[in-house]
């Protein structure tokens, strides 16, 4: 795939060239700064480039959606962030947004409209599922995950928060792998422990860390791959697997990484 165009289109540059784009890829803070999440961002961009999708990113003009501040109780900071972001997004005439972060997805989709930001939001799981459904994204006959046991961890902000349970599973189905469910899945899915601002502080005193509880459940399925669809879940589950000293046998991958790997991108 060396002939691939690896350049990432930036909204400001496209505008300067008089070009437009169909969909804005909202990278998110984790996707921009966290090493593990950056790999997800890069995988997703490779898929977008591979399929010649007309997209753009905001680059350095992107800013935190304000989600962690809002959920920690700092509504001022959240709305400051939201209104600044809305000015930027509306300035570029953005209509559709795709994001790899369920927290950004939820905030942009549900909490920006009443502040003046109205966009058609898609999480990358739904975006990938549509590409598969329309036949644009075709899987190889014998992919690298064929027959492997994969378990999918529902992100709270995709699942319960927005009712997206099937799209990520459909994306995984195309890998021709053996999809196994954890006991607590879908509407009953157990949180990884990072939501509501928990990502940015130590947990309260308890008998166990939430991510360890969840990782144990994932390990119990016998899966060799834990599939995530959220950068925070990714961090928590990766830490959980390390805590259980299983990092040599069990890998945590995002949906975009699994697709990109399977495609050899």
């Amino acid at each position, binding site marked *: 795939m060396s002939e691939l165009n690896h*350049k990432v289109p930036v909204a400001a540059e496209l505008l300067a060239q008089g070009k437009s784009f169909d969909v804005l890829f909202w990278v998110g803070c984790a*996707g921009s700064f966290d090493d593990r999440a950056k790999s997800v961002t890069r995988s997703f961009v490779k898929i977008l480039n591979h399929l010649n999708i007309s997209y753009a990113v905001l680059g350095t003009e992107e800013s935190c959606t*304000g989600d962690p501040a809002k959920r920690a109780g700092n*509504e001022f900071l959240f709305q400051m962030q939201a209104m600044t972001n809305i000015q930027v997004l509306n300035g570029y005439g953005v209509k559709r947004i795709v994001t790899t972060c369920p927290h950004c997805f939820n905030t942009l989709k549900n909490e920006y409209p009443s*502040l003046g930001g109205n966009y058609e939001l898609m999480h990358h799981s739904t975006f990938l599922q549509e590409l598969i459904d329309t036949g644009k994204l075709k899987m190889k006959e014998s992919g690298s995950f064929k027959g492997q046991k994969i378990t999918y961890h529902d992100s709270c902000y995709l699942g319960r*928060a927005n009712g997206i349970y099937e799209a990520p599973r459909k994306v995984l189905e195309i890998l021709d792998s053996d999809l196994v469910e954890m006991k607590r899945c879908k509407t009953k899915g157990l*949180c990884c422990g990072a*939501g509501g601002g928990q*990502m940015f502080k130590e947990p309260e005193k308890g008998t166990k860390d939430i991510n360890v509880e*969840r990782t144990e459940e994932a390990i119990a399925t016998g899966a060799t791959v834990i599939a995530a669809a959220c950068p925070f879940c990714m961090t928590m589950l990766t830490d959980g697997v390390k805590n259980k000293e299983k990092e040599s046998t069990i890998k945590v991958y995002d949906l975009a990484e699994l697709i990109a790997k399977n495609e050899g991108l």
Partner: protein
Amino acid sequence: MHIVPQLIFAVLLAVAGYFIFRSISRIRFNILLGKDYQPSASIPARWANMTLTALGQKKMFKKPLPAVLHLFVYLGFLIVNVEMLEIALDGLLGTHRLFAAPLGSFYTFIINVFEFFAVAVILACAIFLVRRNMVHVKRFSGKEMTQWPTLDANLILVMEIVLMLAFLTMNASDQLLQGQNDHYIATGNFAFSGLLMPLFAGFSATSLLILERSAWWIHIIGVMFFANYVFYNSKHLHIFFAFLNTYYARLIPQGEIDNMASVTKEVQLMLGMTPTDNTPVDPAAPMRFGAKDVQDLTWKNLMDAYSCTECGRCTEQCPANITGKLLSPRKIMMDTRDRLEEVGANIRQHGKDHQDEKSLFNYISDEELLACTTCNACVEACPVQINPVEIIVQMRRYRVMEESKAPGSWNAMFSNIENNQAPWKLSPSDRFNWSDNL
């Protein structure tokens, strides 16, 4: 002489009705202490939601065994209560089985249906008692399940069993009296109470009469007492509030947390924008961000508290609670209700400006509030669509925006977002570095 029981009945009914009215007024007054709330969904959507969730008990069926048992008690409650109409009319008019003659064989059929449900209620309540007191289902315990909530649950079950036993005893002795006493009109055979008849077969006519009358009075006084008990301050209020609460539920994605309008205006002014809401702010009106006490919550949050039947499905699903943290969503709701009762009583006694130097924070600790991941597992689990997360976020808002009291690491996260546009202390100019060497 004949009129005396009728008079006693009328007085009892009036007294019971009066005290229920007082209880309802008190609860209504308390709920309306909350702030304004507008359900956003359309009225047909809300009716549909109520029909499915409250009447159809959709969420109960996530746990099939309790759901079926609960369905019997619920149907029993609805159906056997139809019989209350006849009992009340008999009591007031001095008649006996007023509907038996006009309805004929249909009367026999319908009483048999009532009896079937009476038996089902007794069995279900007995199993519930076993589950609560002998099997020790985990969600029925927890630190908020102190003496009173535990007793409340058991009392409700025992009262329901007693009421149904009285109903069946009344019907059994009634059938034995038919043919012996002209007052007891022939009703046809009742299948379930008929099974009790051998127990009383040797009784004299007088004993039977006493038994029948006692059972009749115990049943009706029991019902009046039970209704008063429920509305006084029992978790059993859910039989009523399940409907109201689902009708007024917010039917928006669970992940959405409301945007505070008061903040929007200030932020728009700070950013040099024209505020979308131009209604002038009353400078005399006290402004508070977030919730310090129950009056700062919406009336829907307060109605949630009265709707809670302490089943513990929320706490059972809470990731913080599962891993041994102090947080229990059920406790958030029970604390809100307890504090609301306290504030309401204070206001009625001492006037609306009374301060008792206490707040919701005397009931709910920061440690509990901070442990929430806002994962909505509790909201999803609740059969009557109670939302503990809203209360938690409102209290966090008070701590953060009114008192600047947040954990140090959250304050660092706030200042990072403010200064670096990301929750971590990383340079915004590095934000696009992920695209290097792609």
